[in-house]
């Protein structure tokens, strides 16, 4: 029964909603621990009895590769859940309301992402994608204020547009191949008919929305800024990972034959996304909007992997995604603690953090350097392998551009470091208080950032699994 992890997550979702309804605010401080237990149980089941099985008549598959992706989602959600108590303590200004529903919706999106990984046919793919997207729209309006609402509406309008385009694309694919299960479609789509290109364009739009690629990323900054910072963390981490999974499924499993000659298009898309993300981030003042553009530029780096079509290229992308999720959550954890306790969201508000709580400042700095791709952090090694893929397929100009882009990204990450280390704290700033659970999360994430890169096991293992998954 390799679908056990997903089932556990859904059961816990219902358990949480039940506890909340029955015990009302008495159970308030038990909800988070229960969720954590649920996720850990799913993780345990996933890791220990993982076997290559086919279920539901070929609609659900699980194997070594899927383990990595699902673990990424589980950890991303776990880290966000750990931070929920930070946002709900009494003395905060913008407290997170109705924690029960929040956690339930979060678990539903997690289940959606896990199904996304192991789906084998377009129906499950479409439904789980929507399951992973629509609840996030709800979460992004959780603050119930103007900004939250506006962000959510934009997210919804563009999201709906994207899902309609995706659906229309799938329809055309179905028309061309007469099949809905992915392994069956692949052999059918060989020669490039106009309908196929229209379908590809529409699907790319859908994926572009999810992965925030250039022309389709407009919603991201506003949605990230409107949402509570906890949801922004989840959006930029787990949701982007889900986007990558969909992209992998489609571009390698559906349009496998065409990926090679679409490389120039991918290169252009990557350049535009990277450059726009980086350049615009230079002048951003609001932390959430800043992280939105940083996430957009990271998406630009990730799709560099699509320039190649061997196992190593896919593993480079997945490895980088894993590293990105860890690093991003490290940065967001500190930002969440800062924003929740000080209520201020501008970069200037980080002034003098190195003097008030040096530990937090150090971890934030390490995280930012990881995002910028500075050794010895895993970010550098991930980026190195991604650029290696681009270089292997001969796009040297793109590698130069990518590295120049990461230099620009270093500039705006250093703007934060400058505020923390060089500026003197404004008077009246008190050091931030950190809950033990958050401390644990921070420790785990920092070890992840350093360990993932230096210890070769992770990359090698992902490489082997990816080769085996691609053949499948």
């Amino acid at each position: 029964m390799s679908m056990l992890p997903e089932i556990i997550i859904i059961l816990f979702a219902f358990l949480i909603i039940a506890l909340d309804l029955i015990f009302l605010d008495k159970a308030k401080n038990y909800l988070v621990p229960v969720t954590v237990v649920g996720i850990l149980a799913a993780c345990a089941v996933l890791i220990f009895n993982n076997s290559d099985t086919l279920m539901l008549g070929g609609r659900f598959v699980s194997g070594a590769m899927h383990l990595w992706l699902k673990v990424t989602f589980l950890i991303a959600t776990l880290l966000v859940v750990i931070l929920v108590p930070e946002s709900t303590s009494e003395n905060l200004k913008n407290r997170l309301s109705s924690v029960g529903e929040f956690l339930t919706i979060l678990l539903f999106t997690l289940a959606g992402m896990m199904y996304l990984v192991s789906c084998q046919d377009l129906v499950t793919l479409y439904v789980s994608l929507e399951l992973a997207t629509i609840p996030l729209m709800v979460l992004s309006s959780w603050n119930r204020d103007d900004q939250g609402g506006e962000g959510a509406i934009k997210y919804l309008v563009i999201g709906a547009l994207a899902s309609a385009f995706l659906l229309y694309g799938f329809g055309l694919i179905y028309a061309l191949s007469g099949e809905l299960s992915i392994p069956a479609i692949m052999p059918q789509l060989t020669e490039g008919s106009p309908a196929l290109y229209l379908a590809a364009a529409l699907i790319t739009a859908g994926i572009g929305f999810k992965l925030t690629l250039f022309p389709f990323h407009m919603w991201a900054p506003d949605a990230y800024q409107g949402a509570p910072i906890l949801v922004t963390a989840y959006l930029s981490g787990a949701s982007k990972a889900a986007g990558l999974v969909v992209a992998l499924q489609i571009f390698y499993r559906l349009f496998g034959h065409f990926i090679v000659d679409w490389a120039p298009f991918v290169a252009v898309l990557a350049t535009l996304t990277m450059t726009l993300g980086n350049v615009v981030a230079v002048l951003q003042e609001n932390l959430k909007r800043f992280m939105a553009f940083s996430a957009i530029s990271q998406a630009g780096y990730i799709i560099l992997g699509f320039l190649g079509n061997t196992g190593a290229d896919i593993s480079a992308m997945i490895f980088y995604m894993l590293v990105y999720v860890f690093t991003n959550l490290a940065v967001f954890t500190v930002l969440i603690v800062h924003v929740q306790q000080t209520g201020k969201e501008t970069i200037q508000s980080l002034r003098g953090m190195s003097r008030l709580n040096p530990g937090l400042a150090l971890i934030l700095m390490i995280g930012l350097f990881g995002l910028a791709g500075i050794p010895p952090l895993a970010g550098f090694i991930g980026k190195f392998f991604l650029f290696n893929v681009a270089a292997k397929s001969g796009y040297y100009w793109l590698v130069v551009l990518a590295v120049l882009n990461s230099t620009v990204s270093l500039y705006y990450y250093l703007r934060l470091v400058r505020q923390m280390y060089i500026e003197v704290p404004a008077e009246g700033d008190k050091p931030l208080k950190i809950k033990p659970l958050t401390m644990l999360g921070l420790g785990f994430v920092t070890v992840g950032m350093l360990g993932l890169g230096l210890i070769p096991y992770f990359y090698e293992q992902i490489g082997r699994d990816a080769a085996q998954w691609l053949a499948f």
Partner: protein
Amino acid sequence: MHDMIAYAWLIPAFPFISFLLIGLGVRLYSQKLAGIIATLSIGASFACALTLAITYFGLAPDAEGLRPTLVPWSFIWVDYMEGLRVNLGILVDPISVLLMVVVTTVSLLVHLYSMGYMKGETGYGRYFTWLNLFTFSMLGLVVAPNIIQTYVFWELVGASSFLLIGYYYERGAAVAASKKAFIVTRFADLGFLLGIILLGYVGYPLYQGSGVEGQLFDYTYLTNPQNITALVGTGFLGISLLLIYMGAAGKSAMFPLHIWLPDAMEGPTPVSALIHAATMVVAGVYLVARLFPLFSTTPDVLEFVSYVGLFTCAFAAIIACTQDDIKRVLAFSTLSQLGYMMFALGLASMDQPLGYVASMFHLFTHAFFKALLFLGAGAIIHAVHSNDIWHMGGLKKLMPVTHLTFLIAVLAISGIWPFAGFFSKDEILLAALQGGKNIHFIGGLLVAGLTAFYMARIYFLSFWGSPRSKGSSHAHEAPLIMLIPLCVLAVLSLVGGWVPFSDYVTIGLTEHQGGHGSSIVPILGSLVAILGLGFSWFVYGRGESARSDAIAAKWGMVFGWIKNKFYMDEVYQFITHQMIFRFVATPIAWFDRNVVDGAVNLTGWLTRRASSIFTLIQTGQAQTYGVWFVVGTGVTLIMLWFTKG
């Protein structure tokens, strides 16, 4: 006795050891002790030099009467390439032994003299440290077996002269003078270095083929005949020798590069005596002498050397007549005598080596009486506390010993019979005559007269007549320790001339030495000298200075030009400050700050500008995002279509 040659390395070693000893340790504890140790070390190296000279000249000359050149001791210093190894060591041959003796003698006497002269100065220990460093580097230069070692110690000599000239570092003039000296000589050394590199570049292919033992830059290699013929074949020898001569001209203050020597008088007088009279300035002459076999193969370079020497000789003598500061007069007189030596060398050639011998002889004698003149002047300045000869006068009675020794030196330099100057100058004039170079002969004669004139001038103005300033009236005799060197030098100036020089220092064909050949040259020389002295007595000797002012007024304009050294200093000042600093250094500094740096800042500014433009895309309107979305899909469709091909 033979082992003295083997221990020749002791001669430069003594000053070096005492330099380190005093410099790092002793001078901090007791200044006096530092002075004593310094003098003792020079004494020891003087003794070694003397015994070396005796043993070396004791050896029998070989068949054609030439003395052997030996390299008793050397160690590998730098290994540039397999064929290009540079050793540091000692080379013993006639002129190096001669120079060793001269340098150690004068240095010892100057050290003794300085113990009296510098008593009570704050930087007493520091002074002796730098003096020892100078002596060490001068000896290192003299004994250099290869041209790279000469260059190394050449620079060290320049540096130590920089330190000594700038001894009174609180006085702005001294600092400027030391800086000027170093930079001008450094400019000349640039030529020297380029000359060496060109010589190496030209010689290396020949050297590599020949499989000769010893290294390319060694003098033994450079001066033996069949290597020379090979080198001449390359055609570049002339240019490299010219460049090397540029280095020599810089150090020996030949015409265009002479401006630093008069200003170098800002240093203490014993320093001027040692460095700017006897030792450092002759380094250039020594270098040309050392490479003489090479120079002789390029007659046009020698011709150039002789004419530059002659011009400097005359030029300096004329200026010396008009200077008021006693040390400036002596400085220009040194310039003039160096001109003598240089043009004597220029006249010589391998088969008529009389000029070479005469130049070396004049170097030998000049070292003594010029040092004596400077030390004498030092004693006077020490007593009168002013350099200006118009503040002196009537010191004959007040400072009898200084007066006597100064008189001997004046007579020696003017070339009066029993004194050293007569013999060496006469030999130079003889060489000019025999070589058929009449211009040089006449020029030399005139300058001899001028020399006598300006020397007598400062003699009469300082010693005769009545004291013209408070300082000179209270003048008292210099202390004993300063007088001993004066007397020793006076004796040497007397005896120096009689040394049978030609059978010690020789080169090329020896039978043409002809000690005092035709007799007209000595007569003419003495006549001109006496004439000069008389005329100077006539103008300055008779006590009333009105006469000198009358002459000065009559040739006002010309006199003014000469007095200001033909405005050469101002020309150099203009070139360096106005031309180079204003039109090169400042524009570069500005260019770097604004243009190159500006370009970098521009990229930063552009990024921020692009950022502010791109942010405008996020209009905030959900529906514009939708338009971007749909248009984006369209563009994607088109691009995918084109990648189909």
